[in-house]
């Protein structure tokens, strides 16, 4: 078990007119190797939840355990926690600060106590993992890179200290369509080679459907669903959450109203094409 959260609640602005319950009795566990999508409207508590995973918000009520670190105990080892959980914030390219890409990526490992040569080696390895050419970029200013490259530098800065869990807050926001796809493919490949457990916040249901094997839905600080993408998009009513199911699911639903029934595990463009082919080739159309 990588992460275990029990009865987690969090209230902002206690005893002020702005008191707001950001998280309300949340419980779930994440196992090693899972890719979990976290969805919910703005203000549903996603960011508050993520910040707990990295000890950025002090735990007040409930319990959060990441591996053997129990945040409900006195003085938990936050340094160790943050080394376990690599967190990529929204628009991470705005957080790049060093003069060179090399210094930026080395910042994490150095702070976790690596020696300089060791840190540089880790930085080079991490940069290559994200598809950056180390020799090309290491001495350049991160600010001269393109948006997609900057985001890779930010991810490399996390991978350099070898976290066991990757937490990504809207990793594709603001990228162009191909940039989005490249970023998602990068995360998928990292899952196979480097960090197997990934939690991703996204507003894009097509992305969630394609890249996550589990979804957690927050609404008003409460955990509403914890299920698979197929079950969520086919069996639950998402309209009150202002969520549109993925396009492939919408088309399957529309076809159902017209009497064409396709299996309820179709979530992506390619799966839909295959299902249609299957359906009609039975009738000898193709």
């Amino acid at each position, binding site marked *: 078990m990588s992460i275990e959260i029990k009865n987690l609640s969090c209230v902002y602005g206690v005893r002020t007119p702005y008191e707001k319950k950001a998280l309300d009795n949340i419980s779930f566990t994440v196992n090693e190797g899972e890719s979990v999508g976290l969805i919910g*409207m703005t203000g549903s508590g996603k960011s508050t939840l993520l910040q707990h995973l990295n000890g950025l918000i002090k735990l007040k009520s409930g319990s959060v355990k990441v591996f053997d670190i129990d945040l409900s105990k006195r003085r938990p080892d936050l340094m160790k926690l943050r080394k376990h959980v690599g967190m990529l914030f929204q628009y991470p390219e705005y957080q790049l600060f060093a003069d060179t890409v090399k210094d930026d990526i080395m910042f994490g490992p150095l702070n976790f106590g690596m020696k300089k040569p060791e840190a540089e080696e880790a930085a080079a390895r991490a940069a290559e993992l994200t598809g950056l050419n180390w020799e090309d970029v290491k001495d350049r200013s991160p600010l001269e890179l393109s948006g997609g490259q900057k985001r890779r530098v930010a991810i490399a800065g996390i991978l350099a200290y070898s976290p066991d869990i990757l937490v990504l807050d809207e990793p594709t926001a603001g990228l162009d369509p191909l940039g989005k796809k490249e970023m998602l493919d990068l995360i998928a490949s990292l899952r196979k080679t480097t960090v197997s457990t990934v939690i991703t916040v996204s*507003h894009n249901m097509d992305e969630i459907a394609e890249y996550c094997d589990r979804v957690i839905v927050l609404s008003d600080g409460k955990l509403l669903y914890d299920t698979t993408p197929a079950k969520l998009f086919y069996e639950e009513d998402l309209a009150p959450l202002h969520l549109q199911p993925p396009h492939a699911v919408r088309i399957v639903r529309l076809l159902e109203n017209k009497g064409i029934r396709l299996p309820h595990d179709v979530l992506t463009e390619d799966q839909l094409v295959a299902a*249609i082919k299957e359906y009609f080739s039975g009738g000898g159309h193709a």
Partner: protein
Amino acid sequence: MKILETCNVSYSYKTDGEETIGVKNVSLSVERGEFLVLLGHNGCGKSTLAKLTNGLLMPDEGTITVSGIPTSDEDRIYEVRSKVGMVFQNPDNQMVASVIEDDVAFGPENLGVERSEIVKRVEWALRSVDMEKYRKGTPFKLSGGQKQRVAIAAVLAMKPEILILDESTAMLDPAGREEVLSVVKRLNKEEGMTVILITHYMDEAADADRVVVMSEGKIVASGAPIEIFSDRELISRCRLQAPVCCGVMHKLNALGFRVNPVLTDEEAAEEICRLK
């Protein structure tokens, strides 16, 4: 009548003796009342083109005219800017006042509009984006979608003739995007506002009168959404991605199923049904 015309416009960014091309030889005319979507990869020159149209940048070569006024006419640059209203990506960067109605009044105040007229415009602008009940509130407590609607109202209060949205929905959640898009579409349909929407969301392009595609500073295609999204070679060359329904139709065709190109999930379902 053409409301915006750019003729062979080029612009490069110059830093430390290095030149980076912003746009190169761009000629584009926009009709009054048109809903135009501008697509292209990051760094293709979309935002540069937008900034050139209201004189935030001056072209190195070529001319730009807005309702017949050249942006190079320094005496009339404020007239140009009041005709071309721009809304940017980050709603937080566009709020100048701590009360919503003051924020909306900021533009016309700076244009020297009479007080009684400002009051009318603020009311009208906030009503147009469906935010009039928040007029006395503070922008900082609004959701992203609401903030962008206030940003649009602030631009409307200057009575622009063209509304340019530069990735104004990029930072919003699906509900916020929907709010902003429906306001923009209504302004286009009901008030005849000319709209140029710059976006990475291909779905937002489906309803456009025309889609213009830019790549590496140049305009590489211009046409109806269905033409643009049916051109697979163009889509991949320009780092775009067609909406899912277009991709499905294309792949079905490749498998030997005869289906026509579509733009929406509903049309896709119709086409698939015809295979029965």
